[in-house]
């Protein structure tokens, strides 16, 4: 716990980390508070104000059904953030543990599971996810496990590689020689060394998951209307975008700022922890 605070403090001391952290926290705050601060009802249709440009009454204008865009934009990230914020830790947890385990035991089990991992990675994410979503529905109870499962698979690889680099170290050999159980070795010797890589990976997974989630909504397989969602709002606004760009550009700005914020945070985290994901990036 103390370490997390230290890391966060160091992340915040970098310009990109500070901006990223600020953006992410702001979005989380909006997602939590928005039901109490929005000016209108998100499904209140008004035939009189269809596609009105931004003015004092509707700061972000209205959409094709006369609904307030500000209200819907503020509410539009809730389901995306909720789903991805739950699914990311699950994905990193199960993928990380399995990866570390495989890195430790190696041998036949490792070979077999890694081939299956390769097979899953060779299929497009959207095909895998759509098959499940079309069959079982697009509720949160389907989306969370689906995202958590498929986004955990690449984590296996990362965790396995990170574990590989420590498995041959003396202290792991010593622990083995002491006759410690595998679980103890994983918990006491491997996990602390792999945790940094997993934290960075988790931050990246979060942004990719958000990308996937909003793309699913955009394609019409994520959040169901009339629940406001950024991806869905962009999709709905596309046909009359030249006439009423505000209906699409505000959700676009919100979604993009969150994703860029997460990425800046991930990069700053990678640099702080010395994990070479940031690839010596200048910002």
């Amino acid at each position, binding site marked *: 716990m103390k370490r997390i605070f230290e890391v966060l403090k160091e992340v915040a001391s970098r310009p990109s980390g500070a901006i990223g952290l600020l953006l992410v926290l702001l979005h989380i705050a909006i997602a939590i508070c928005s039901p109490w601060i929005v000016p209108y009802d998100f499904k209140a249709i008004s035939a009189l104000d269809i596609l009105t440009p931004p003015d004092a009454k509707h700061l972000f204008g209205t959409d094709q059904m006369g609904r307030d865009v500000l209200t819907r934009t503020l509410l539009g990230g809730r389901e995306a953030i909720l789903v991805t914020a739950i699914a990311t830790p699950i994905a990193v947890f199960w993928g990380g543990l399995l990866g570390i385990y495989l890195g430790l035991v190696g041998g036949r089990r490792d070979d077999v599971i890694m*081939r299956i991992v390769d097979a899953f990675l*060779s*299929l497009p994410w959207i*095909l895998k996810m759509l*098959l499940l979503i079309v069959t079982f529905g697009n509720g949160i109870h389907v989306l969370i496990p689906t995202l958590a499962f498929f986004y955990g698979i690449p984590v296996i690889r990362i965790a396995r590689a990170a574990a590989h680099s420590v498995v041959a170290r003396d202290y792991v050999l010593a622990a083995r020689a002491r006759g410690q159980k595998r679980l103890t070795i994983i918990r006491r010797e491997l996990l602390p060394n792999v945790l940094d890589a997993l934290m960075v990976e988790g931050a990246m997974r979060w942004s990719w998951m958000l990308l996937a989630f909003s*793309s699913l909504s955009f394609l019409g397989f994520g959040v169901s209307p009339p629940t406001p969602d950024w991806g869905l709002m962009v999709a709905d606004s596309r046909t009359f975008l030249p006439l009423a760009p505000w209906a699409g550009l505000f959700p676009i700005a919100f979604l993009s700022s969150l*994703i860029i914020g997460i990425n800046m945070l991930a990069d700053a985290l990678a640099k702080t922890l010395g994990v070479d994901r940031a690839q010596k990036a*200048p910002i």
Partner: protein
Amino acid sequence: MLKLLFRRIFLGGLTVIIVSMIIFGAVEMLPGDACTALLQQDARGETLKQCQEDLGLNRPAVLRYTDWVGGAAKGDFGLTAHRNKKVSDLVGDRVKNSLLLGLCSLALGLPLAFAMGIAAALKRDRWLDLSVSSLAIVAMTIPEFVSATVLILIFSAWLGWLPGIVTASASSPLSAFFPEIILPVVVLSMVMTAHILRTVRSSMLEVLDSDYVRMATLKGVPYSRMIVRHVLPNALLPAINVVALTVAWLLGGVVVIETVFNYPGLGRLMVSAISDRDLGLVQAIALIVSCVYVTVNLSADILSLLANPRLRTSMGRNS
């Protein structure tokens, strides 16, 4: 060396076989089959049984699997759910269109990515590097539907320079796709350029920091000669694998972009196949896409193995 090559190829083949099992198994486990898709509401009782008998769906799964794989190996994936078209014909057109989109994007994006990556690395931490790297982060993190929508708004709706939507149908001749293909190609190459240039840049920096480059500088090798002879060959090799991943992604159907631009490629066919529950078509597309992925990555591995002797010792062990 030869042993290593064969091992790689064997593993690639194994992956494809496992994929075929996963796809077949997944489709088996999902509720519904070809008959329920064909008959819709009428799918019950005698009719359903009769249909399943006609299509051979009541045979054991193992037999149907071997039949399917045997057909697939010959390029025969059977008929679509409505039984009026051959899957291979339907998929063939789409593969051709996806190939066109992918190759155009590569032709635009690859040179751009390498040029920008190399330039950014040579001007490390200066304004050029800063702007290229920031642009790359924006391009690779923003959802594709967002960049596509914004570009359509600017170049098609406001400026009126380019068509914002593809009107050519799936079986149109390739020439019908110009100039409609330009915007989707631009969006795709933006994303791939960002990914590749980041890799090129970081591997360039790694080589520029290395001892042998410092040695060459101390020896007085001219700057341009050092970059061309010592830095580039070593720095560009690691990019092969990223390029391969990008190619696989491009050819595997870029669903979102195809949907935004109404482009008749493999990705949109995949989505409509899943929505229509045309499981035979889904299986065929999944198998093709994963074969492309495996083949492209395998070629990249072999290529870097041939070009870089240092990998020959470690690669065989690590996989």
